[in-house]
């Protein structure tokens, strides 16, 4: 007979200063050793449930809490957060902000040090965790040098080293590529085998398909549907789509090899032509002038694309694993890497060096970095050469931002911020729009909105390059797929 490890009884919660409650008379029990998947749209209350169990509500995030939460036979309201550290572990969404140390070793032992374990015990646990999660290669490194996927591995290890009975994961795959997500799957399977109670809140479902014992779909702070893991896996893709969930299976879009590059013979006037896109992070020693990079430097090149044609007015997906040159490619195209000798030709006009920034604009993965002013209107006007309020309003209208024109960009939702960035790109007259992982961590509805937006941009005369790990997005809106592999074009094809 398994006993209940987590009991949530009739809980309602509302954040301080917020009008609507995020949870509404919510009850849930989780048995020891159970793996529970929480899904549902953004804002449905998944994260709030996670925060109830790890005690961040009510001890860190303040608000009005009614009802009872018991975790491992403790009343959460009466338990100090540090007392829970050895019982409940949490892996958070953002790999950049959840580590406290600067190096990997320090982060793995951080938790055990906090709860005051003896040094020998900490070292023993560290070695065990490292072996179990297979991360020897990451030891002794600075966390700032690691990729998002590697950081998330360390986050799992640092939770694991505390040996908690309950492990919570709050959208852990949001910033991960496919390989890293598969590793995450392996980790969860290992934890499951150890008999830990696991709760995952997630939009991406494919990697959890046959791990979850139970699946709960939330809507407006309540449980809307509940399945056993088996029943859930058996759902047809139509019913999943109807539930506004992301697919349970994804085809391996990235590995297909049939190269149909016939469209590369398209007439020049229909294409944006990229030439001499070479770049390296390993600079050669130089005396006064750095030698211009050419194809002859092949052995040191991080990016090596001598010639490429991008069909105008289309959406081109840029795929490939992390660290293979995708973001370097985007950075070079939009002129952020001044050492890249690349030339872009469009409509007979050449853009090189700094001029590339006139033609291109990149919507960054963390769009917060590119919003500078105190209102949406001012943000767009900042990009306009001749400040024209009328033209600005037209652009805002087309992106559905007009009602927000006087708001502070930082007060908007993630999707709206993305659109503000797009609006300023359009205002600056950028013809080639680049998107770096625009859908990471989005639910189905928001992803479809981004897809629609990209299609609209392409139809209205822009050429869109979008780097992505989401096969769903490619399926929805991309016309071409460009795979970058080790800095070169792996394949380049029309999407079937």
């Amino acid at each position: 007979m398994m006993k209940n490890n987590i009991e949530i009884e009739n809980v309602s919660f509302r954040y301080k200063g917020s009008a609507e409650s995020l949870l509404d008379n919510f009850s849930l029990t989780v048995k020891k050793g159970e793996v529970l998947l929480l899904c549902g749209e953004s804002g449905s209350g998944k994260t709030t449930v996670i925060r109830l169990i790890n005690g961040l509500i009510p001890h860190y995030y303040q608000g009005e809490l009614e009802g009872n939460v018991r975790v491992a036979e403790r009343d959460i309201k009466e338990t100090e957060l540090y007392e829970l550290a050895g019982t409940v572990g949490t892996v958070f969404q953002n790999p950049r902000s959840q580590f406290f140390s600067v190096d990997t070793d320090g982060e793995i032992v951080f938790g055990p040090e906090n709860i005051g374990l003896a040094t020998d015990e900490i070292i023993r646990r560290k070695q065990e965790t490292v072996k179990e999660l297979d991360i020897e290669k990451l030891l002794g490194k600075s966390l700032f040098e690691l990729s998002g996927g590697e950081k998330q591995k360390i986050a799992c290890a640092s939770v694991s080293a505390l040996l908690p009975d309950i492990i919570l994961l709050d959208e852990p795959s949001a910033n991960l590529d496919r390989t890293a997500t598969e590793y995450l799957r392996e980790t969860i399977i290992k934890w499951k085998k150890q008999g830990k109670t696991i709760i995952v809140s997630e939009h991406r479902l494919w990697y959890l398909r046959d791990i979850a014992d139970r699946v709960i779909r939330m809507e407006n702070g309540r449980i809307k549907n509940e399945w056993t893991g088996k029943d859930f896996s058996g759902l047809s893709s139509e019913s999943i789509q109807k539930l506004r969930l992301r697919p349970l299976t994804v085809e391996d879009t990235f590995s297909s090899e049939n190269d149909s590059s016939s469209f590369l013979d398209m007439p020049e006037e229909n294409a944006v032509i990229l030439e001499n896109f070479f770049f390296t992070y390993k600079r050669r020693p130089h005396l006064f002038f750095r030698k211009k990079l050419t194809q002859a430097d092949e052995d040191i090149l991080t990016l090596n694309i001598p010639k490429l044609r991008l069909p105008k007015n289309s959406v081109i997906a840029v795929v490939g694993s992390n660290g293979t040159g995708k973001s370097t490619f985007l950075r070079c195209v939009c002129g952020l890497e001044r050492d890249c000798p690349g030339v872009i030709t469009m409509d007979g006009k050449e853009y090189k060096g700094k001029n590339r920034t006139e033609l291109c604009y990149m919507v960054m993965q963390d769009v917060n970095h590119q919003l500078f002013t105190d209102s949406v209107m001012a943000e767009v006007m900042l990009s306009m050469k001749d400040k024209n309020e009328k033209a600005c309003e037209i652009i805002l209208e087309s992106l559905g931002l007009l009602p927000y024109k006087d708001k502070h960009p930082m007060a908007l939702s993630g999707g709206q911020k993305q659109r503000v960035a797009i609006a300023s790109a359009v205002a600056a007259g950028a013809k080639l729009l680049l998107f770096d992982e625009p859908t990471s961590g989005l639910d189905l509805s928001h992803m479809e909105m981004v897809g629609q937006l990209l299609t609209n941009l392409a139809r209205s005369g822009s050429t869109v390059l979008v780097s992505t790990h989401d096969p769903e997005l490619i399926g929805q809106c991309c016309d071409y797929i460009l795979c970058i592999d080790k800095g070169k074009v792996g394949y380049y094809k029309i999407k079937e």
Partner: protein
Amino acid sequence: MANVKGNTSPKKNLGVKDFITVGIFTAIMFVVEFACAMLGYIHPVMVAGLSVLIPLVGCIPMMLFYTKIEKFGMITIMSVLIAIIMFVTGMGYLGAPLIILSGVIADLIAKSGGYKSFKKTVLSNGIFSLWICANYFPVIITADSYRKDLIDGDYSAEYCDNLFGAINYKTIAVLLILCFVFGCIGALIGKAAIKKHFEKAGIV
């Protein structure tokens, strides 16, 4: 079972969140100090300009920091951290008493206004800005003995002034006043920037 209101009230003692807040803003202030001190490479005399530059450039983060203070100790800890970092980065320890003293006094002033009164915040920031003068202590102390040694060794006074220019024991009073005045001005500017951005965005 009765529904218990789980309303959490701010606790009396400083918590982890407060320590982390202090750490973040200290890091930002130190980056500001470092960026401004870079101007010193143009000529050491420029270093005297720090007492105007740092309060002005650092005003937005400082005012944002003030909005996050609810309990006594945060400004004090910041001053201790600044003193430690200055010591470790080789800028001497003679300024430490000044830094920590201005931190404690600034903390007390802000506390007397319940960390809410804007007038007190302005005054507090002005006092706290005095820590910048700690940058000058090694130069002043050195210059003093240096000058004496050099003049004893038949060097001209002009040569000595070239060496340590605008910063010496005579001008330190002026520099302290500058720090205070620009600390207060900075508080006003910073407050305006907070209103323009962070309050409008609903962050504070």
